[in-house]
């Protein structure tokens, strides 16, 4: 019954994050099973082009008369999948680089200089430049975004590893004759896992925004495969005729990224004692009147 008590704890501490987790779950479900019921996202029907929401097309139609709901859902699969791959690759690479360079001082200087150099580029600018040289398309987009986000994770995990390295149980493990790799995987990684989870949810959110921006600029996945970003780009010439065409794919990005941000904050509030203390204090201050409302202090 431990899971239930953890769940109760989350519900009591952070109902907002839980609410957004539910929203995200609904969106994922819609994207997973929606296409079975929604209309074919590739079906062209020029007779009904650029129409507003109606009974036949819940979110309206685009410039070829394709169903926008169907396209937003199938774009969701593409965008979320791509973001998930980027997040997965950066989490694995960032964790390996961060753990080993935090633990082995000799490798640290060189590796972290390289990470710093990558961090010296504004993220989206580096991604744009990399895609420009790698050529546009899903594979180079994933590669570019993974290169952009890996250093962020490597830095964080290196910090966590450095902090853990001095702990007594690590020294004990070393005295017991464990090799560096074993210590890292058995003792450092489990303790870095909460940080990793928080970072992963933010990286996922950033990756989705960057993916949307890249495909909006025509540097990501290209039409006719819909993504949330390239749908907005396609809708650009028609913003005077049918605003819904632009609104809905963007709204999908907003909802998912907001959910990921809230979930990331929620996990952080749950695992980080410092932000937990801050959160408790804020809650307390909401319930009890602040000194401003009190009368002037009585002076002797």
């Amino acid at each position: 019954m431990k899971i239930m008590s953890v769940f109760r704890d989350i519900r009591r501490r952070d109902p907002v994050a839980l609410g957004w987790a539910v929203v995200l779950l609904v969106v994922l479900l819609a994207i997973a099973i929606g296409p079975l019921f929604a209309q074919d996202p590739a079906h062209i029907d020029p007779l009904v082009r650029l129409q507003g929401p109606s009974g036949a097309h819940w979110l309206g139609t685009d410039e070829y008369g394709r169903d926008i709901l169907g396209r937003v859902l199938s774009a969701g699969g593409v965008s979320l999948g791509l973001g998930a791959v980027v997040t997965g690759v950066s989490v694995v690479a960032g964790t390996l680089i961060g753990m080993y360079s935090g633990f082995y001082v000799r490798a640290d200087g060189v590796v972290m200089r390289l990470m710093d150099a990558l961090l010296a580029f504004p993220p989206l600018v580096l991604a744009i430049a990399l895609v420009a040289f790698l050529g546009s398309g899903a594979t180079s987009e994933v590669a570019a975004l993974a290169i952009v986000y890996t250093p962020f994770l490597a830095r964080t995990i290196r910090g966590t590893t450095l902090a853990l390295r001095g702990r007594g149980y690590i020294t004990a493990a070393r005295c017991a004759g464990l090799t560096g790799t074993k210590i890292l995987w058995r003792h450092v990684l489990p303790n870095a896992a909460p940080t990793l989870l928080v970072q992963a949810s933010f990286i996922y959110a950033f990756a989705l925004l960057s993916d949307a921006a890249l495909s909006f600029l025509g540097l990501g996945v290209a039409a006719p495969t819909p993504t949330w970003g390239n749908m907005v780009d396609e809708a650009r010439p028609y913003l005077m005729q049918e605003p819904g065409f632009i609104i809905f794919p963007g709204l999908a990005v907003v909802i998912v990224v907001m959910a990921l941000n809230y979930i990331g904050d929620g996990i952080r509030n749950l695992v980080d004692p410092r932000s937990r203390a801050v959160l408790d204090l804020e809650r307390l201050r909401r319930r009890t009147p602040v000194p401003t409302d009190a009368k002037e202090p009585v002076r002797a």
Partner: protein
Amino acid sequence: MPAVILRRVRDLVITLVLVGTIMFFVVHMLPGNPAVAMLGTFATKAQIAQLTHALGLDQSLIAQYGTWLKNAVTGDFGDSIGFQEPVTRVVLSHAGPTALLAVVTTVISLVIAIPLAAYSAARPRSWWTRLLTPVSVFGIAVPNFWLALVLIIVFGVTLRVLPIAGYVSPVTDLPGAVVHLILPIIVLVAGQAALFVRTLRESILAELLQLYLRTARAKGARERVVILRQLLPNALIPLMTVVGTSLGTLLGGIVIVENIFVIPGLGSLLLQSINSRDYPLVEGITLAIALSYVVINLLVDLLYVAIDPRVRIR
């Protein structure tokens, strides 16, 4: 203090050399001849050979790197293929609008964020405070290109009160420049101000746990004085770092906003040079943006050392 500065400048130089090296090898180690890519499908073999030689691509990679590094140190990044001018000159002539957008956005975001965060710390039970988190998360989550288009629909197309594109230099026509900058700046401020409010609120809440506030209250100071004089200066220090680091996100946003609102800055130039396969220019713009980003963060860090004595002791 000078030792700290020297160390930071040394680190910066190392980082910049690495940054340039990374860019060089990304451009030169990729499969395929850039000359072919630049000339397109219909180029003849002679044309390709000529451009390959002109770009120095027929030399060994190490020799090319040596030449590149030697030129880069003197500020020479080659010639732009599209403009037929030195890259450095093209970049400098487009830097104005980008710098203007960055500075104005940062200043307005700070002016909005600091009072909001301070107010929400002083009045934890007000409705504004409760609205602040959802609004700031929305500001961070909203894709800037989408927000820009939605604002264009509302203010440019439906209400017809603001121009939807174009750039007027503030030197020649200040009112015209302001009118043209309103929409781009709103888009950029949405993300920046949201980030600043969140950071500042978190650091204010963390400061609230500190005991010096209790001391101040115990001495009979009013809550307003406690927050404005004691708490805010301390809580502002972490915000300073975020102003520097978030410049990366801001510059990315500026690239998009310049593209949508047709502002002739480095962002538009970057996308234009990518489309015309002007690789020396792409390399130059990326390096220039990275350089300004790193230098500004160095200045922020030095300011940090000057303001916060705790850092100096370390």
